[in-house]
């Protein structure tokens, strides 16, 4: 465990520390304040302390996080809770010393717990977060924030009135390639942002096996509107967060379409969505998700006047590098203009249309880094999830709030919910005034 801890936790901490040595590093951190205290020095400072963590919801994602937190030196898992016995038993095997609960309210009554990690279906987020904050616990909750706009606002308001820490698992905010890529965008590498394209494709029915029909909605909660907001909150929320982070604005309107085109198995949520979000300056986010074809995988693509940043795959392309790959005739023109005589690669059996393959890809980070293919329902390795859990556990000790995390989660979730509303109403929806918070810039 300690070795893994070092690997998981220290990589991002060192990356943040290194920003201090590079030109503009301070500016980067100022623009990403949630990273300010996630440094090697802070890790040393809290070395001998441990956050006492309770888990609420120990299904597949909860167990994934139990693995991650078990590897964090400054955390102890002291309690676990689930009302579905097989999940609780499975989690108990992972942390046998943790006290077991079947009612989360009983867990919240325990004074031996500093913070809770909530990994439950979306419809339970709001009541559990609000109860946990009321009980004086620090809270980490999986995305998205909540099932309705009112619930999101209630959580946001509660957070303004508490000194407790609240984190949402917006793990891209702790993913090195996103941090560096967004920094490059804000430094002007790809010019003005002129468009954003995000997509998430899978070929999976999104179902889990159920031991009896009575448990269908409890286990396959993602498929029903009373429990979930479908593809938007489960997948799009991460990507819309990135779009706003890159653009430093929030879209003011959205239109969209959603349907069940393939998995017609009684589910209520869509298995195919296409939406367009529009910023006040006319720039648009084109969002698409489909779970009956995985060919395109997943990407968060920021289109600039001078280049394109593919954040999910960690590469970027520059428009002006097309010159390096000029067609034969363009090379000849260039040669003559520069008084050069040499061969031009133009002859062949047929003309090849000039396509995107002439762009040169550049890695955002040097060396090896992980790419989330987007196919797992549970989580991906090194996608920032472990780091954000570590930051939360640190915050449980220091009591320092994570700047902007709640606000970013709030705007991402509300945009997702508005997207669903636009789909259901079949019309363009503007961001409602009553749900705007000071953090949002339109």
């Amino acid at each position: 465990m300690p070795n893994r801890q070092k690997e998981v936790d220290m990589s991002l901490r060192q990356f943040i520390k290194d920003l201090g040595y590079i030109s503009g590093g301070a500016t980067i951190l100022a623009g990403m304040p949630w990273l300010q205290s996630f440094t090697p020095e802070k890790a040393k400072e809290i070395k001998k302390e441990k956050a006492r963590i309770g888990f609420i919801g120990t299904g597949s994602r909860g167990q994934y996080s139990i693995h991650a937190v078990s590897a964090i030196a400054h955390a102890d898992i002291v309690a676990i809770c689930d009302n579905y016995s097989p999940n609780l038993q499975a989690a108990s095997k992972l942390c046998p010393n943790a006290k077991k609960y079947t009612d989360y309210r009983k867990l919240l009554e325990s004074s031996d717990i500093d913070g809770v990690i909530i990994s439950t279906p979306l419809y339970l987020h709001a009541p559990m977060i609000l109860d946990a904050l009321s009980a004086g616990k620090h809270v980490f909750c999986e995305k998205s924030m909540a099932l309705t706009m009112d619930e999101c606002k209630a959580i946001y308001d509660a957070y303004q009135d508490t000194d407790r820490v609240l984190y949402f698992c917006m793990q891209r905010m702790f993913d090195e390639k996103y941090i560096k890529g967004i920094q490059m965008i804000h430094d002007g590498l790809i010019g003005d942002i002129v468009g954003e394209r995000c997509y998430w494709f899978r070929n999976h029915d999104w179902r889990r096996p159920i031991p009896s029909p009575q448990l269908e909605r409890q286990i396959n909660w993602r498929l029903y509107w009373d429990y979930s907001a479908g593809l938007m909150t489960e997948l799009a929320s991460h990507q819309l967060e990135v779009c706003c982070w890159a653009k430093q604005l929030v879209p003011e309107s959205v239109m969209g379409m959603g349907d069940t085109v393939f998995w017609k198995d009684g589910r209520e949520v869509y298995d195919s969505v296409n939406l367009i979000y529009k910023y006040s300056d006319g720039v648009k986010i084109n969002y698409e998700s489909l779970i009956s074809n995985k060919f395109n995988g997943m990407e968060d693509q920021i289109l600039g006047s001078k280049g394109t940043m593919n954040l999910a795959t960690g590469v970027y392309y520059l428009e002006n590098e097309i010159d390096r790959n000029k067609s034969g005739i363009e090379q000849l023109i260039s040669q003559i203009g520069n008084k050069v005589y040499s061969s031009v690669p133009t002859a062949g059996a047929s003309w090849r249309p000039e396509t995107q393959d002439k762009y040169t890809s550049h890695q955002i980070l040097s060396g090896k880094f992980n790419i989330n293919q987007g196919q797992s329902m549970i989580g991906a390795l090194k996608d920032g999830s472990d780091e954000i859990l570590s930051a939360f556990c640190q915050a449980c000790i220091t009591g320092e709030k994570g700047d902007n995390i709640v606000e970013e989660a709030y705007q991402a979730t509300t945009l997702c919910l508005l997207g669903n509303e636009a789909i259901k109403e079949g019309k363009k929806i503007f961001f409602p005034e009553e749900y705007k918070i000071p953090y949002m810039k339109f």
Partner: protein
Amino acid sequence: MSEIDTGYFNYYERSLMFHGSLVNIMGTKFDIIIIGKTNNESEEIWIRIEQELRRLNFMMNRIDPASEISKINSQSINNEFKVSDEMWCILNNCKYYHEQTLGLFDITLKDFNTIQFNKRNKTISFSKSNIQLDLGGYAKGYGLKKIQKILEAYNIDQCFVNFGNSSILGIGNHPFGDAWKVSIENPFNINTIVDEISKSNASLSVSGNTPSYSRHVVIPKSGKSEVDNKLVSVLMHDPLDAEVLSTAFLIASKIEREQLIDRFRIIKAREYKL
């Protein structure tokens, strides 16, 4: 009606260089670089060339039902169809090439002898019902020959014409070299070059299969497609000869190739196994 996109042109004052370009012309792209003329002179030549290419594109486009070749295809089955003087010359020229290439060049892709020529009325007819004429292996070479004449009429002595990469005409020499040098790319590995050819007052034609455009050359005698991954380049003074010969060479046997070399004035012909 034709499928020609608007062309564009540019003049580079410092180099006295004119570049004209058309996309979607005869199913490909056309580029010309003219050296040593003023902007106005170059534009005048370009207008002539563009008009000529649009005219030929319309005449030889068998997809367009209004084109002359389409009308021939639809109205010549057991029927004497009167063709224009130019088309009469083209079809007779194709007949000549068919004979001279030992039947390897065949615009019917099946049986050229089913075309009946009536010299007196300049009519043609097909003696079988499943015959269609396809000028795909001829049109670009014919177009280049027409353009060559326009360029001669304007006394152009330095010019580079690229018709879809597979048909390239070089007149005179590169302003800073003694010829025009082009390299031939391996279509199955676009970063590798299979040959480099220098040419002056000559036309290069390249035929072969590519990953996206394979099996397009039909062997008339068998009716089957050439399937080997290979390229053939032919360099000749006459662009139309080069166009016809590159297709014929691609499907010719070793003996047939030797006969073709005897019959035509070929500067250079090469085959590349890919």
